């Protein structure tokens, strides 16, 4: 590529689940190294956008460029080496050792999806150390806590050596301490490896504190994108979520005529 431009560029992207449309012409332009918070009401297409980027779901129309090339023209194995996907929750039916979960991150790099060289192992263990789950290596990942499991999957993204991380509501359901530890790990890794992070969240405060850029979606379309300061306005949020927001300093709250405090901070 002569002009690298944006790392991820979507124009009029559409996708659907069977007959239900999920993306209806999404636009996004994301440069390498950004931390992008993707905000929007339930069903606005946030998770779907991540799934299309992760190639879990095929787009039905529009353009999606990754590093200047249409994403679906690149062999899957190749994009899997560069893009890591951390789903919101993983329902583990069969027992699997946490170390083996992390080793799966090496699968796209190995021959025939086998990851068992000493290098694979070392990278998996290093990643687990970085995410503070080294001690869980031999434990069954279906029998550890949700917060621990989230960090095991984060370690996997690290072992995958991907330059883009797609995180679907990574902090949902974590208690304050685990939430803090998780975000600190994420921040450290982002600082060390300059990873581009796309993060779906419902926490507007987290977006404001953590992200360098916000992508605001509604009905499968982009209604605003850009630096937090520009996009996170009471007007934009009210439009995106269909309920009146008001600013209080850098925070936002939703008014309520029912709740005792008269407002709620989302």
């Amino acid at each position, binding site marked *: 590529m002569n002009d690298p431009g944006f790392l991820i560029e979507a124009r009029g992207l559409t996708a659907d689940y069977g007959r*239900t449309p999920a993306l209806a012409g999404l636009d996004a332009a994301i440069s390498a190294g950004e931390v992008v918070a993707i905000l929007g009401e339930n069903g606005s297409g946030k998770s779907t956008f991540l799934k299309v980027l992760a190639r879990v779901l095929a787009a039905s129309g529009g353009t999606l460029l990754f590093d200047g090339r249409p994403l679906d023209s690149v062999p*899957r194995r190749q994009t899997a080496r560069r893009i890591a996907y951390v789903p919101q929750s993983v329902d583990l039916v069969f027992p699997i050792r946490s170390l083996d979960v992390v080793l799966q991150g090496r699968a796209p790099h190995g021959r025939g999806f086998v990851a068992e060289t000493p290098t694979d192992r070392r990278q998996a263990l290093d990643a687990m150390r970085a995410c503070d789950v080294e001690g869980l290596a031999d434990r069954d990942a279906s029998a550890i806590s949700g917060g621990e499991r989230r960090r095991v999957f984060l370690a996997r993204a690290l072992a995958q050596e991907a330059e883009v991380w797609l995180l679907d509501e990574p902090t949902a359901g974590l208690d304050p301490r685990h939430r803090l530890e998780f975000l600190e790990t994420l921040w450290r890794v982002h600082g060390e490896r300059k990873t581009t992070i796309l993060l779906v969240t419902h926490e507007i405060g987290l977006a404001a504190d953590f992200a360098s850029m916000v992508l605001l979606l509604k009905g499968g379309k982009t209604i605003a994108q850009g630096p937090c300061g520009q996009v996170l306005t009471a007007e934009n949020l009210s439009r995106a979520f269909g309920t009146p927001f008001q600013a209080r300093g850098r925070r936002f709250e939703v008014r309520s005529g029912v709740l005792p405090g008269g407002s709620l901070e989302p």
Partner: protein
Amino acid sequence: MKFPESRASRARAFAVGLLLLLAVALVAFSVGGVRLSIADLLSGRGEAGEMARMLASIRAPRILLAALVGGCLALAGAALQALLKNPLADPFLLGTSGGAAAGAACAALAGASPLVSPAAAFLGAAAASVGVASLAMRGGRLDLQRLLLAGLIANAFFSALLLAAFSIASGEAARTMLFWMMGSLADATPGKDAALAPYALVGAVILVAMAARLNLFSVGEENAAALGVDIERTKRIVFLAASLLTGAAVAFAGVIGFVGLLVPHAVRAIAGNDQRTLLPLSGLAGASLLVAADAASRAALAPVELPIGAITAALGAPLFAWLLLRTP
């Protein structure tokens, strides 16, 4: 729960499985309506030796058939469980075996030569898997409850088809239909063993080659896709290979249930869920189980022979109930 570490430990596990199969085969060889002494067979003189050789020529092909059929069914079940991330998947419960039997029965009814029956059974099995999988799709994904219901529907449909074929058929053909419905290893011949072996080998090689991909599937289909696996292609290959194994087993031994459910669970509990260990070990353990079950069917109420399917169902049905209770 043990998690095998390396290629060496996988090879060790495989060797243990192979030894187990040989031991079971030796025991199965000597039990039955008449006890067969290995010593007589080897020293082989006089009337005792004659008798031993005659029994051996009947029992050996039967034991080989039991091993091949058990290996095929268990391997197919193990691969389907990983692919569908579903511990209840089994070629019998998902209607694949029923489809295979109906396919073979239709071919027999149409007057096709018995040589065609594995191909017809494979087509029936493949049609059944595709039908059941598409019935179970909901919003682009396979739904666990729908999958089991779809298997139930397929089984009801195929048994109706077999019963209809049974009532139309007469004489020898009717007996054949009954054989496919009930499952039996009694008609084993060296020729049948030789005909089944290539199908078993091809199916097994394909599935074992898919083991690393199936490891990613056993965490979830989306998981496999995000790690670069072409999931649609993998699903097609695994479904076809599992149908090939099931079709071949049913063509030569009829419908024998629960082997594909039972064996992978036992192996997983001992050796963990790494498909590179689980698949080959399930093949060996399935072979051992069916050889043992067949010996029990011959010996338990001798000279009356129990249907082999009754023994596998007696073991498999309680396990199925237990798994169902544990499934959230």
